[in-house]
């Protein structure tokens, strides 16, 4: 990577823990022998803030399925849903109340690596797939509204995708082509609206291709396996033992172009394998990321310079941590591991 010019250096956080908070393991579950790839709290519905879901390959009786991702969503009437996807590319929408499959979406040509819910309209989800596309779905009507792929799309598997928290049109996706792409569906929003009132067969919906992102960022030089909006900034990680917070500076006149201002870096030692994802609490105050050796680093995201809140380690936690989940206020951290275990860490009241 090119040398960062003088005056544009990011602020790098110190790995000395601030001991602001202390966490202790309060539970551990063994879900089976196969890896668990996802764990996620419900941030959509305040009644269920204490509910979480995990996804993996265990106990799936279909041979060819193994879930890689799961996300909370809800129907337009507020029924909480879980949307999960994985190896075989079929998105499953589970009605958590009736414990039945509400819908299954077929369309992706390969595995699904991540599903995220639009917090402002929780019946919209996006999925990132190995088929190099990102797709926007309406889980209420079962329609694939938009496909983000094509001439300006990803050139390899898409590993992660995230909705902008306030700009409803905007998503960011990243993947194995080492880029982060920001897409806008503003011009296609009529189709999103149309999808809510569509009464015909979902397959007859005029699904549109969004071929050109509004911004392409080469922040990393290797797989980018997780990206999240922090306000207007993006926190993303590759396999370089760090999280990177950067600001996309778009040129209004020429879409696709722009510069990246790398603001802060959050070192995470031994985090050099891909498909390790991080999570934030509801208010994006902290981010927790696991590493290859089963340790968790909890960073204060929004302070400058970044502060390491805590480093969590346990002698029995040796397996790579695929994903963490922070509870609403960050007081509980869950993590799921390659060896099929789920760990719970709770904050210890520091008196």
């Amino acid at each position: 990577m090119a040398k960062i010019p003088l005056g544009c250096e990011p602020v790098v956080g110190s790995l000395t823990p601030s001991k602001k908070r202390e966490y202790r393991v309060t539970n551990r579950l063994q879900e089976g022998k196969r890896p668990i790839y996802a764990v996620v709290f419900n941030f959509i519905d305040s009644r269920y803030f204490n509910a979480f879901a995990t996804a993996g390959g265990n106990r799936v009786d279909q041979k060819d399925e193994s879930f890689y991702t799961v996300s909370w969503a809800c129907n337009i009437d507020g029924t909480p849903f879980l949307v999960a996807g994985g190896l075989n590319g079929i998105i499953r929408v589970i009605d958590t109340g009736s414990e039945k499959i509400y819908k299954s979406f077929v369309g992706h040509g390969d595995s699904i690596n991540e599903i995220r819910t639009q917090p402002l309209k929780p019946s919209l989800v996006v999925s990132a797939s190995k088929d190099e596309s990102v797709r926007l779905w309406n889980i209420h009507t079962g329609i694939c509204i938009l496909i983000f792929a094509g001439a300006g799309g990803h050139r390899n598997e898409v590993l992660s995708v995230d909705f902008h928290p306030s700009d409803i049109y905007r998503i960011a996706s990243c993947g194995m082509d080492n880029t982060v792409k920001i897409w806008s569906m503003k011009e296609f929003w009529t189709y999103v609206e149309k999808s809510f009132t569509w009464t015909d067969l979902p397959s007859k919906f005029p699904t549109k291709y969004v071929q050109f992102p509004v911004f392409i960022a080469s922040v990393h030089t290797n797989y980018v396996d997780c990206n999240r909006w922090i306000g207007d900034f993006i926190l993303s990680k590759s396999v370089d033992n760090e999280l990177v917070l950067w600001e996309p500076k778009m040129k209004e006149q020429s879409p696709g172009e722009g510069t990246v201002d790398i603001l802060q870096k959050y070192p995470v030692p031994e985090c050099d394998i891909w498909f390790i994802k991080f999570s934030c609490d509801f208010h994006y105050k902290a981010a927790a990321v696991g590493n290859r050796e089963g340790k968790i680093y909890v960073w204060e995201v929004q302070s400058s310079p970044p502060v390491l809140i805590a480093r969590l380690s346990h002698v029995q936690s040796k397996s790579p941590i695929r994903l963490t989940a922070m509870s609403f206020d960050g007081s509980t951290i869950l993590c799921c591991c390659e060896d099929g275990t789920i760990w719970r860490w709770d904050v210890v009241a520091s008196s």
Partner: protein
Amino acid sequence: MSALKTSTSVSGSDPPIGGHQETGLSPKAIVAVIDSLKKQVASDRSLFIKKRMEENTEKVLDVTKNLYKLSMKEEIICGDGGVDLLAKRQKDAIDMHSGIGTSNGDNESSSSQEDGYAPSAILLGSSIAVKNAVRPIKLPEVKKLPPYTTWIFLDRNQRMTEDQSVVGRRRIYYDQNGGEALICSDSEEETVDDEEEKKDFVDFEDYILRTTIKEVGVSDMTLDLLAQCLSRKSCEIKGRYEDLIKNDNALCRVNNGNAEGFVNPYIDKDLDAALDSFDNLFCRRCLVFDCRLHGCSQDLVFSAEKQLPWSCADVEKEPCGPNCHRLVLESEGNAIVSSKQTNFVEKTATASNTPGMQIQKRKQGGKSVRIKSMSCQSESASSSEIKPNNDVTSSVKSASAGRSGGDKRSSKRIAENVLVAKKKRQKKMATSDSDSVAGSGLSLKDLNLRTNSRRENEDISSSQKIKSTSSRKSRRKESLVLDFDKSLQGEADSGASNESESNQPMASSGDTFKKEEFVDENMYKQEIIDNKYWKPFEKALYEKGIQIFGRNSCLIARNLMSGLKSCSEIFIYMHRSEKKILSHDGDGTILADGCLKADGNETADTNHSGNGYLKGRTSLVGSTVHVVASLPVEKPVHVLLMMSKELQESIQRVPLCQESVSKPPMPCFAADRECDPDVCRNCWISCGDGTLGVPSQRGDNYECRNMKLLLKQQQRVLLGRSDVSGWGAFLKNSVGKHEYLGEYTGELISHREADKRGKIYDRENSSFLFNLNDQFVLDAYRKGDKLKFANHSPDPNCYAKVIMVAGDHRVGIFAKERISAGEELFYDYRYEPDRAPAWAKKPEAPGAKREDGAPSNGRAKKHT
């Protein structure tokens, strides 16, 4: 960059750095200065980041507050009394947890943070309880799709864009089995020539450079030290320093000078510069901008034969807009006509210019076109009968006087008009004079037409009468250009009436020429004024317009000059420039002139006995002749021929102007020329496949094979699950042998690129590469059509053929045998034997799929 805002002094406010030449400081001191600056920059940067972070934090806070409210919505709606959808499972989960909790015993001691290891702690969470507690949800069976990469439909091939290249780009693979191992791509072979990209100086470096020089002055040592500290070469620093000084000076100049208001950036360039982008970006083969097949900057080809100006029948009568020359002229002409009528009806002593009269005239002049044309007709019809009553001169006078209030230009010409009107009479004589000279004959009509066309194309005046006539002769395509000047118009007008009134031979050609000179002079004056307002760009644009649309100011104005010049302005300009050319070319064309004169007059005579229709024409011709006579015409024969040809064509094309003139037959088997559907109907030659000149072996195939590709007459292909493996392409309707099924489209990539991509695709064991020619390989991996899903078979029912279509190689898929509806399509990928993947090597296993088997380096080859 934007961090500069926070730094204390920014480049803009710095004094120019040129002044300091003196330096008495030691290197150490200079380094200290630089270091302190660097520190300052660094702290500025962190301050800036902090500020940005704080701003963003506030934003995030608002966002999350809002989201929290949203998440509360359900609770408010349902209340706590609502069904707790997760209650059951939650309870199960808690039971389960507590079970583990008890078995765990003390779990506090088991956690550790940081280095506080508790080695004795062991978590005993087991899987026993879990199995009992969780009820699995049955997943309904959904058939999985065969894997594919999202692709974009292409109905025609596209050239690869640069950013899609994989050459020189590092690609990282992971071990499919282990999942973690990272294998860096094959960049070993070619050292990724990271040519030391020239790093731009960022604002901070400039800042340090400036401030240091400001403080310690300029010297080689300073610059060297700066280079050292900024880790750049000293020559770079020097160059930058000079740039900065230059910029400062430029800045000063800009500040002193006044920024000009916004101007259309093109308006000051000449057209060639502006057309440059057109020449570069417009694809002449596909007739689109930014052609994605042939790219930019194609060679320009100018056809040898000149194209006929575009023309359209219906533009004739309708004014193109409020500034249409028709409207302008009509309203002016109308004034004349109406004044005449007024004169006629009221039998006023017309010479007087009473205000009341003026008003009346104006009223009439302002009336709609309908009235106008009516009056025109009546005029043209009646003028011959009625005339005696008024003195022409006076009528013209009053007409122009009436107009003078509103029309700026006309005032100038009133005097002229009067003069002209007087001379007119004399001119008339000239006409009638020649009358006697002209012989009569059967060819008269022809000549008449010729004259007409000549008039039209040369744009020589016409009058109200012409207009009415022309509307009857509405078939004409050539823009009927009406008159060039009011003065002339009035002149022609009165001339016409004069003519029918009396044909007294009085002739003096000298007079005619005098008058014409006079008019020309007048024109020149006007022209000079006009020229000022015509920028070179506009002139060039006008020239183009003439080329494209012919002399149709409406079309030129609408299509090329909108926002620049109005139709009437163009019309006037067109007329002036023409005048200029004509008069520049001088005289010596009297003979032709005379002929024309004679012809016209003969016609007029003949027509005198005709009906109303002819009468209208008569007067038209008559007036035309006058003007023609007044113009020295250059290259008469040439022009005449040309025009008449055009006219003939226009007559032929009476009903439809678009009908193409039949081109000479172009044999498609002539060198390097493939079939053209307009030309090669029933062509026996098999085109473009290397068998030039040899009749097709297939007697039932009359057509050139590229035609269906060109015309996209393809079969409906369906995409479905293959009976063999993965996806397959199926045919909707049955087809016969050798029938064209469709085109295999994709990205056009270079062979080098294809080699690189081939390696990537081999890992996925799926390749959509197709060798097209020496230059290109087709890749349908991300862009293509459904035929890319047709599977390989050693015993296929289709074959692929590279065919030249409109200058490009394209791949057509043809039926090798009769294929019935719904059958799956296969063709032989024709791998080179040494490069074929395992599944393509074994002919015993028909229909082996590319997704199976071992990787290969191969790709489909064009069979030759």
